[in-house]
């Protein structure tokens, strides 16, 4: 793994007293390789390595740590810092229900995440209202309804012939009338380059005024993570990220890419197919996973 490689690479630095540009050059290459294998976007990796380099150069080789351990500590700290703080609380509405729009690309895990968010917050004392606003995908409305039923939580009676923006508005009204304080809107998967569908989300946001717009991203996403996340963020001003399928062996470099390009907090991670498989995000855990 990386720390073993770095320990070997930096063994010769022990007698040199200080980390210098020359003696960490090989190590930076090892870290670059690790990041690229982990699917961190190559530009994000480059920027990250620059900041590691500037932090590392000139550092005295401390007595208790080997140069390898010291260097990896710098890399780990820097990566953990970049991932942002642990923060799984939703922004709350000042009056009326808190509204959350769940958006992202096809197959990322939005519908299942809405179920998981409903479960998570019901356990925290919220009264969630699940809103199926995907009128395109076959059986998408059924899918969310089945999840809501299994949680014994109310689901908005959307139908395929309705308009997603109208569904969202109607659901918000319904939630107010029924004293439900958390409206979770499941939207259709879409490409960030589909201007018509991106515009639909933009409209929904304007009319429904959500407190949270969560971008759901698959942990195994590769280099394209920066393009998708940047477009969604530019268009909607996301409030948070939810990473799915973290129960697999994807290293999750997309997390760093998305964080770097949006500067938005990663709020939750999904770790399985069951409704209870939602956890708060821990930056240090994902940092060490990315480094491998």
């Amino acid at each position, binding site marked *: 793994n990386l720390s073993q490689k770095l320990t070997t690479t930096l063994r010769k630095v022990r007698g040199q007293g200080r980390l210098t540009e020359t003696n960490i050059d090989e190590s930076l290459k090892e870290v670059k*390789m690790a990041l*690229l*294998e*982990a*699917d961190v*976007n*190559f*530009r994000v990796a480059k920027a990250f390595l620059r900041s590691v380099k500037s932090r590392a150069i000139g550092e005295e080789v401390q007595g208790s740590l080997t140069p390898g351990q010291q260097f990896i500590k710098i890399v780990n700290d820097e990566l953990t810092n970049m991932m942002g703080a642990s923060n799984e609380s939703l922004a709350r509405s000042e009056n009326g229900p808190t509204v959350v729009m769940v958006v992202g*690309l*096809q*197959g*990322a*895990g939005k519908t299942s995440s809405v179920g998981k968010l409903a479960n998570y917050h019901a356990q925290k004392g919220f009264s969630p209202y699940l809103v199926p606003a995907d009128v*395109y*995908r*076959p*059986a*998408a409305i*059924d*899918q969310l309804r*089945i*999840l809501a039923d*299994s949680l014994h939580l109310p689901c908005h009676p959307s139908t395929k012939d309705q308009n997603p923006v109208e569904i969202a508005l109607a659901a918000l009204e319904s939630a107010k009338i029924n004293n439900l304080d958390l409206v979770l809107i499941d939207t259709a998967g879409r*490409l*960030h*380059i589909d201007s018509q569908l991106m515009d639909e989300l933009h409209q929904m946001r304007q009319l429904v005024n959500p407190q949270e717009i969560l971008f759901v991203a*698959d942990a*195994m*996403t*590769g*280099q*394209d*993570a920066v*393009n*998708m996340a940047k477009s969604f963020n530019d268009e909607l001003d996301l409030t948070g990220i939810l990473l799915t*399928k973290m*129960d*697999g*062996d*994807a*290293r999750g*470099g*997309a997390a760093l890419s998305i964080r770097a390009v949006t500067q938005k907090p990663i709020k939750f991670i999904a770790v399985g*197919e069951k409704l209870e498989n939602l956890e708060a995000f821990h930056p240090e855990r994902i940092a060490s996973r990315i480094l491998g």
Partner: protein
Amino acid sequence: LLGKKEIDEEVLEGLEEALLGADIGPETTEQILEVVTSRVERQELRDVNALREVIKEEIVRILHKEVPIPTVVDRKPLVLMFVGVNGVGKTTTIGKIAAQYRRDGHRVLMGAGDTFRAAAIEQLTEWSCRAECDIIAKSQGVDPSSVMYEAVEKAVREEYDVVICDTAGRLHTKKNLMEELRKMVRVIRKIIPDAPHEVLLVLDATTGQNAIFQAREFREAADLTGIVMTKLDGTAKGGVIIGIVNEFDIPVRYIGVGEGIEDLRPYDAKQFTDSLFS
């Protein structure tokens, strides 16, 4: 590559970034660049365009496979099985492929083998309506192998041309789910010894290097005969396929280029490679 004509450090770096950005992965990128830079050093390549062409040729050489697709004529019924991790596009791809066989005048039967996920059976049933074909659909929670069995058995008995089996998405790291997949294959084999004739791994073009692990595990569990790469209508290039085809020697059959029933294309190595650089 910034209108440069001569090959220098900057040009090679630009090429490396183009390859990495396409999800080709650091190891495969390094291999491709080694092949190319040695030719540069031997003065065989003098300008950027020639360099790019050599890279493309190298990629096409890896990707182009002359493995014929088993046809309905050779086997009847032709048994296809779709596998892959969660959310990649298996069910949608089955809808598209069923429609294609229907357009060619074949009798198609679908097997709703995802008996786990909420509304998976309803979703495939909708696709069977769109493709105008029949379907074996039971209920959520039923053993998926029994659906496979029933579908293949009916296909033989009622002389369908093609039977297409859907399976639940599963992460390749879950041993029990991969074992469930092995069981499905064994059950199908009981009825038709050389079936399934095609086991297609569906990969999402937005997936990074993890696709290699997916290919490795699914190949081990279900003996893959082909790959379908979906979502190439997005901005992801799907370059990870190069390392996969190189290592496992599995042909890519189709690509998915959208969510509609017609959004399926046969794989073309040259077209795919050109779009890696576009």
